[in-house]
């Protein structure tokens, strides 16, 4: 890794941390104060700087490697952080949102940190295995990574919708669920001391229990919060933002799955082989297909859809990082670090 590339990546990471603090400060200023407006603008600008630095870092890595820079877990994490920042900039331009800003920054920071903690071999530019020497790599992988980032933003919007609609118990349960699932992935990546089955149980069990409890607790409403006109408006806005993120992510996921099938057929003679990762991508696709059907056809309430969006986030996490870190095998083992 060159010094320039490292500097650009670090600048992007520092920008995420700075934008997180600016967005947090903006939450504590008066609802329509000038300071709030300015701090939100500043936060957006810092995020934009980080996004541009990360774009440059990815490009310089590609130039150094003399190939498309998306071939291992570290590189995919850079892409994910890039897509999360870009996705937030896209929706914030459309909606003028701010609370999502600190969650988007926090997500980017966590992924930067996760990438930073990976072994040096992941940071180093390594030669490609024969299966990855194909133009299909840059057609198939980037749409998937961007779709995962958009689904993350949709899930985060779901959390904000739950907060603004006064579903604080549900919000707490869903945050705890995400924390449990993320911990399982962190332990699975960096620790050999915990049995893989315990981690799998921790992820899947907490997701299942958390989602069911989340649905059941939707009836518990903070009356004061749900009566605030501004809060109701914001809740509706986050519902809309979540849908917009899914509306962008779903075609990208579909494109990623289909091009993956085309690549597999081109390379191995079978466009579908029930490989764990492709199966999991199908599960994620089905969950968002259900989300869209529930929204359009059943006109499910925004709060229920928010819980579905958080479940989607968990499934996305499992598809993207879970399968390599929680001991699942398959053809997509390039992301493994052990």
């Amino acid at each position: 890794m060159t010094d320039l590339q490292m500097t650009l990546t670090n600048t992007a990471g520092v920008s995420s941390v700075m934008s997180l603090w600016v967005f947090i400060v903006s939450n504590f200023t008066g609802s329509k104060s000038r300071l709030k407006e300015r701090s939100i603008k500043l936060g957006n600008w810092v995020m934009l700087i980080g996004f541009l630095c990360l774009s440059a870092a990815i490009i310089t890595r590609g130039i150094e490697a003399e190939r498309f820079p998306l071939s291992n877990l570290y590189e995919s994490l850079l892409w994910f952080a890039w897509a999360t920042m870009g996705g937030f900039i896209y929706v914030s331009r459309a909606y003028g949102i701010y609370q999502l800003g600190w969650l988007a920054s926090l997500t980017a920071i966590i992924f930067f940190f996760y990438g930073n903690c990976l072994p040096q071999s992941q940071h180093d530019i390594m030669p490609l295995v024969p299966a990855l020497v194909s133009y299909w790599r840059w057609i198939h992988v980037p749409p998937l990574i961007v779709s995962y980032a958009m689904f993350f933003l949709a899930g985060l919007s779901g959390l904000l919708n739950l907060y603004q609609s006064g579903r604080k118990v549900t919000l707490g349960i869903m945050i705890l669920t995400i924390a449990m699932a993320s911990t399982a992935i962190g332990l699975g990546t960096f620790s050999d001391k915990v049995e893989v089955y315990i981690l799998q149980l921790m992820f899947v069990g907490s997701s299942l229990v958390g989602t069911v409890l989340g649905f059941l607790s939707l009836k518990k409403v903070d009356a004061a919060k749900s009566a605030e006109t501004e809060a109701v408006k914001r809740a509706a806005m986050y519902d809309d933002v979540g849908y917009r993120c899914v509306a962008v992510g779903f075609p990208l996921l579909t494109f990623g799955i289909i091009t993956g099938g085309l690549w597999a057929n081109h390379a191995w003679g079978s466009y579908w082989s029930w490989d764990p990762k492709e199966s999991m991508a199908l599960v994620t696709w089905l969950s968002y297909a259900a989300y869209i059907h529930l929204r359009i056809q059943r006109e499910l309430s925004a709060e229920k859809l928010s819980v579905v969006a958080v479940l989607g986030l968990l499934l996305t996490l499992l598809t993207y990082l879970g399968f390599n870190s929680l001991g699942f095998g398959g053809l997509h083992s390039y992301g493994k670090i052990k």
Partner: protein
Amino acid sequence: MKATVDEMETAAEPTEKTLLAPADGKKQRRISPLASVQLSVFLMTLMAATILLGAWCPQEAQVGQEKVFEAFDRPTAEFLVRAGITDIFHSPWFLTITALMTVNMVVVSFQRVFPKLKSYNREMPFFGGKEIGKLACNRKIDLRAGSQTAVLGQLTAALTRLGYKVKFSQGQGLKAEFGRLGRLAPTVTHIGLLSLLTGITITSWTGFNGFRPVLLEESLNFDDAKHASLWIGKMPAWTVKVVSTRRENYPTGEAKQWFSVLSVLDKDGKVLKTQEISVNNPLSYEGVDIYQSSWGLDQLVVSFNGQKRKLGLNSMGQKYAAFLPLDTDTVLIMSLSSEGKELRVFAKRKEWEAPKLLGVVPLGRTLKLGGVDMVFEKVLPVTGLQYKCDPGLPVTYGAFLIIMVGVLLASIPHRHLWCAIESEGESQALFIGGTSRKAKVGFERSLDKLIEDLGPFKEELK
């Protein structure tokens, strides 16, 4: 003619009920319970849970039953095998869900989705202030006297800029529509899904596939090809000979690419086609595709004082090694890299900590081992060839394309907007409202922006 509010709402975003109701007021067609959206979501959930289970548990069809016993303790593995979880994608449970989903999708397509096409070109009526006031998203603005023409002109220009198609009423009003193409999304997606089912069915009934490791200069035939039990396809009579095969390495010694030159031979041994294949670059002949799937060195041929001996090679990271026991305590170890140009010969005795290097011998040369002349004769590489015949592929690829188009169309929000200017005593009022099922807040914001831009004409905002 003024429409009722119910008619307005259905006109803006036609619901299933009104879409399926004949326009002449005949009794609404009955929808089968199999076309229920709840059933669709329920089946999607069951399917997702089943696939998740299949992704978690090693599948016999992909990795063999031994991997199941490697992954779990014996009682658990036996339970998983008995329960059918280790081959879940061929289990009656999964096939039943797939069949139910197929039936659900076909019935939904023909009873709910395709009939909506009839209303695609249906013109929405013009609405008056009263009807607009009852829409989910609506605003009322008092206008300055005499500004109605300018207001409608500005709104038309702004809506056209935003991509709406605008039409004027005879009186003082307009209607505008955005993203009508988006309404085709369910129809296109469902056509794609039904085409996908058709492609898969054709493949299942007529296609075959298989894998065979083939030694250099040996041939691949299709005798052990796998196909469905209900099969009406035909196996090729020709065979494929491996003319040469090699591995290309990075400077670090890791594999960069595997290559094999293959010749298609007819029954009489006549060459019909020759092509070099590599990973991601298959050979295609008469609808059968042959892929480079794996590569290795399989056998080592050496001779001892003129007596030839074939030894099996084992992959040891970046090297290959053959083991020849000389007596109960001594083993001769021969190792070589993937290039296979140089053989390193070691001896290992029980009491030695590490093997001792006896010598290095290039291909075709002799190494003296005491009174024995050992000749490094040749190395036989093996190329892993995957093959498949998939006559349903063009239909499947077409389906992929249609699904992609459908999913892209689904991201277009379909919006309707109405304006009416009506006199209220001496003043005039602008009623503006509309519907958007997919992105309501975004729609409301665009509506507010339109109104904000009408500032110079506004009398007072109520």
